[in-house]
């Protein structure tokens, strides 16, 4: 018991003293996951909007597929990206294996379906509400898509944050393609896994606390942003 307590106190010290290794790992974690979520947003929001507005054969099947892909197991994604990026793989010549770039790619693959599926839900509802009025104005498809993206922006923040939450908390994919190399590809989750298995709990606990605070702050702000939209007002 006293061992755990002392680990806690060392963890607090690490956080309060802004330990260099700790800060470096946090910085890299956010760099990787924010990059992944930025790319996933650029792909997922337009894709969600197109799926909400454009009718084409196979649309329903595609929506079902994307929703199903939200549950992709991270380790399997890591494995597949590993095969693609490894020296003998199709993109091996790019030399991306065990780099932060490879980690960004892996997280991107994981969260594009999440951002797409969640924004599709939001935009679908909005489009159903707007459809007749937009048609009446003779709006073109691109005009319709831009309109619902703009008007749905508050709720879309929630979709993007859900993607970020998944990326930052995920361990399996970045562990495989990043390799957990100290000072290069080590992020919060992989460090926690490693330090815990080594029995060195202090750094793991410090990072764990920061990760929990990040996740809670993220969900709280997503809730607040969504709640600020006056959707429930009006008569």
């Amino acid at each position, binding site marked *: 018991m006293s061992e755990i307590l002392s680990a806690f106190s060392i963890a607090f010290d690490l956080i309060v003293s802004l330990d260099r290794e700790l800060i470096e790992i946090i910085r890299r974690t956010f760099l990787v996951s924010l990059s992944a979520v930025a790319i996933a947003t650029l792909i997922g929001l337009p894709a969600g909007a197109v799926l909400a507005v454009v009718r084409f054969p196979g649309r329903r099947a595609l929506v079902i597929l994307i929703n199903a892909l939200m549950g992709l197991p991270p380790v399997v994604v890591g494995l597949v990206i590993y095969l693609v990026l490894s020296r003998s793989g199709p993109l091996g010549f790019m030399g991306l294996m065990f780099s932060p770039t490879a980690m960004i790619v892996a997280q991107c693959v994981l969260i594009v379906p999440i951002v797409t599926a969640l924004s599709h839900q939001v935009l679908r509802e909005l489009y159903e*509400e*707007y459809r*007749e*009025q*937009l*048609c*009446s*104005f*003779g*709006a073109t498809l691109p*005009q319709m898509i831009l*309109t619902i993206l703009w*008007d*749905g922006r508050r709720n879309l923040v929630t979709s993007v944050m859900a993607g970020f939450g998944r990326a930052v908390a995920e361990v399996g994919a970045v562990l495989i393609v990043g390799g957990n190399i100290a000072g290069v590809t080590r992020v919060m989750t992989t460090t926690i896994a490693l330090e815990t298995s080594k029995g060195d709990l202090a750094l793991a606990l410090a990072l764990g606390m920061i990760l929990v605070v990040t996740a809670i702050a993220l969900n709280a702000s997503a809730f607040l942003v969504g709640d600020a*939209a*006056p*959707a429930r*007002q*009006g*008569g």
Partner: protein
Amino acid sequence: MPSLPLSLENVSLSIGGASLIEDVSLTLHHGPRTIILGANGAGKSLILRLSHGLLGPTRGSVRWGGAERLGPLRRRQAMVFQKPIMLRRSTRANAGYGLKIAGMPRSEREARVAQVLERVGLARLAERDARVLSGGEQQKLALARAWALDPEIMFLDEPTANLDPTATAAVEAIVNEIHAGGAKIVMTTQSLSQAKRLADEVIFVHRGRVAEQTPADEFFANPRSAEAAAFLKGELAW
């Protein structure tokens, strides 16, 4: 090219196997305020949507000034819905949205928007989120938004169905102003008194068919169809 006269020729509409509109033929000309009158579920709204091109007929054809494709003519028409569709934007942005879609430059748009908001009495609420306006204000905003387009035809689908008498009177006054400005008015209602106040011409719809299209004076004094006569007496058998 004008989109009037607008004609429905032997138009039928089925949705999911149910026949909702059956063999409707009618022509709308420039000028008179046309009121489409009928009971709930008679098919009034569907005829309006077919006329505005929001729905395509299952059989038959709709022609706008002789053309079978609406295309850019859509921009010469505007529609106000029973439940106003408010974009999640300010009152001002809502009023200017149709003009923006039509590609009017911002400077012209601002003047036009200020003018229509003034006319419907919403100028002081211009910056407010449109979705916190009252029901009556929202419907006035929907009218202003449609009016801003300076349409050749204005379709109105029971615009006062959810409004109190004061707001109803205000909406009717705006409709008359729009008509006075030269627009063709095509409006549905299930209210006999409203039809009497507004109609120059009545199209009476019963069970997905047009029972008659008659000048208003004649319709209320001496309807041609048995269904309309029963409706006027308040004893329409359903």
